[in-house]
């Protein structure tokens, strides 16, 4: 047990003009504990919808999600979420942001404090515990977001383009941090990303989704995440296999985008 099962998920939104949009169609997936799944796809392929259903923010029109045998019906602390940006509470300092989950659960401060200090060290913010959120750079803020999620000790961590708003250098550093945290904590992680490179680097498994209707296009099992743990990620990128996979997936997504554009031109 200890796994996440996504069972034949479909999602259809009704539009005000009477039509409807099929955001997801028959998506099935199973994740064992400790797996890191990267989800990639062009815009409109339903990857964020998929994540929101797993998080419990959306109810699917068909199918269900179960975690450890329990069906997901709403958001819960066993499924932590890391957002792109702006999801931290800027009226609290770094420490109080990190301890938000335990505090809400009513856990005593004495019990939470060592956990928070530990996490501050893990994400490299040991000197920034008393800073306010708006005093931190974007990269530091995402470190806080990761620590806040981990403080709640969730079974699954859902990341919605957590590094999307960072500059290239910071992003590279943060990718290393994500791998390190994954290895150290053994959490199951689903990571949504726009970047093919990031998906290849971080995804132990990689799901390429196709749009209209949102569905699984292709799935890969990749060695690069294991390779990258504790190593310079630039070395991983130099691997020949890495470059081949990147070209293959880029081509795949290009074709999907072309198809969408073509269809739009036809209708126009």
């Amino acid at each position, binding site marked *: 047990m200890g796994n996440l099962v996504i069972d034949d998920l479909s999602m259809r939104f009704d539009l005000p003009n009477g039509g409807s949009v099929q955001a997801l169609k028959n998506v099935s997936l199973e994740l064992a504990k400790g797996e890191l799944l990267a989800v990639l796809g062009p815009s409109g392929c339903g990857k964020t919808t998929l994540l929101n259903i797993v*998080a*419990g*923010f959306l109810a699917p029109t068909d199918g269900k999600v179960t975690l450890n045998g329990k069906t997901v019906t*709403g*958001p*819960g*602390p066993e*499924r*932590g*979420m890391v*957002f*792109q940006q*702006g*999801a*931290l*509470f*800027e*009226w609290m300092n770094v420490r109080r942001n990190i301890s*938000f*989950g335990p505090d*809400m*659960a009513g856990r005593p401060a004495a019990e939470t404090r060592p956990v928070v200090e530990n996490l501050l060290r893990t994400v490299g913010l040991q000197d920034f515990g008393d800073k*306010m*959120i*708006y005093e931190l750079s974007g990269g530091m803020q995402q470190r806080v977001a990761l620590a*806040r*999620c981990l403080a*709640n000790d*969730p079974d699954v961590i*859902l990341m919605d383009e957590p590094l999307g708003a960072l500059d290239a250098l910071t992003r590279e550093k943060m990718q290393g941090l994500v791998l390190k945290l994954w290895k150290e904590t053994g959490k199951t992680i689903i990571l949504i990303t726009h970047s093919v490179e990031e998906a290849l680097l971080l995804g132990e498994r990689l799901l390429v989704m196709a749009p209209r209707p949102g569905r699984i296009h292709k799935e890969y099992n990749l060695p690069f995440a294991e390779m990258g743990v504790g190593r310079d990620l630039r070395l991983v990128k130099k691997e020949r296999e890495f470059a081949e996979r990147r070209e293959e997936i880029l081509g795949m997504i290009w074709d999907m985008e072309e198809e969408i554009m073509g269809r739009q031109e036809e209708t126009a």
Partner: protein
Amino acid sequence: MIVFLLYVAIFAAAFGLYRVWERKRHHLHDFASLKTVTFGDESAVSPNRFASVISIIALFGIWGAFTGSAITPLHVPGPFVGDTSFTYTARNAAGETDDATVFMRVYRVGEDVPLPETSADQPGFAVDDALKIGAWRSALARPHENDIGGEDDGYSIIAIDGQPIAPDGTVRFSDGEVTMTSKGSLSIKPDKGWQMEPIWLPAPEAVVSRLVEIANDGYKNVSLWNHLGSSLGRVVAGFVIGSIIGIPLGYAMGLSNWFRGWFDPIVEFMRPVPPLALIPLIIIWFGIGEQGKVILLFLAALWIMTISARAGVSGVRISKVHAAYSLGASKWQILRHVIVPNSLPEIFTGARVAMGVCWGTVVAAELVAADRGAGMMIVNASKFQLTDIVILGIILIGIIGYGIDILMRMAEKWLVPWKGRG
């Protein structure tokens, strides 16, 4: 017009002098001073504190100069004050002419002065006259009344200081003007100068001394602090009640479809109604007492606070709420730890606006009817032409309004330091 031109001239002169002085000064090489493009770069523009100080000095300087104040060394010409005279030439019914003098003593209103003396030795039929005239006023002289044969037909005054004059004609004498009325009397207007009469604009020190007087003795049997305090008290009471009801109402409108739908028409309708337009209705319903004023201010604050609280709730990023849910927070915890703190900056902005509106509204309401308060003080003083109290009241109202805004801004900095940095 002259005042305006003078003000523009002072502005230009101060600007020019400052530029010359600045060019000689050692320059600070801060970031803004090293910018080569400053025109159009709003961030390179900051208020020049020299200009602010000179501006205030210039305002008081002009005020002082045009009121003959003791605080300014230079004054524009004041009204003529002192003794003066002119000689008139009269012709009697027999066709003879004779000269006599009108002695005038122009005095500041409020002073007690005797009539000027005339010489007892009067050779001809025309007899000297003596008059007292208040500064800025005019007086009517009737020289014929004491002239021998002055009431006869054929008597008339034909010249002033040798200049011929006829009914409805005007001539100048050394310190003023004389106009002959159609009945042959002389209307004398001593020169008024350029200064303002204290009943139109008192000198700054007159306002200050009035402040001291009212601060010590009160106005209309109510102390100054009581006047200002009761205005402030009404504002605070109205604002607090408005916030207590408006903020939860705004939250409810931001969180529930039903509340939003129910109160939307009311709030959107009441928001554009200026509180001043409610004064007549409030007076009809609640009278002119304390209760009516607090209700008026409550209404003034209510809609502003409701709308700002609603905007604060609507402005919360959904990812913050989602994050809190996925960290295991309950609805109440999200309200208390996410939605309320997130809305505080908006609420503070609303509170600043509401306090400003309330302060303006209370003064206006007191102008209409009140037994005490800053507005009542100035409207009551204006009925007795106590211009110094009116000006004093306006200055105090301005200072308090400005003070309220500064206090609100300080509270905002202290309580919501994250404002605008989300």
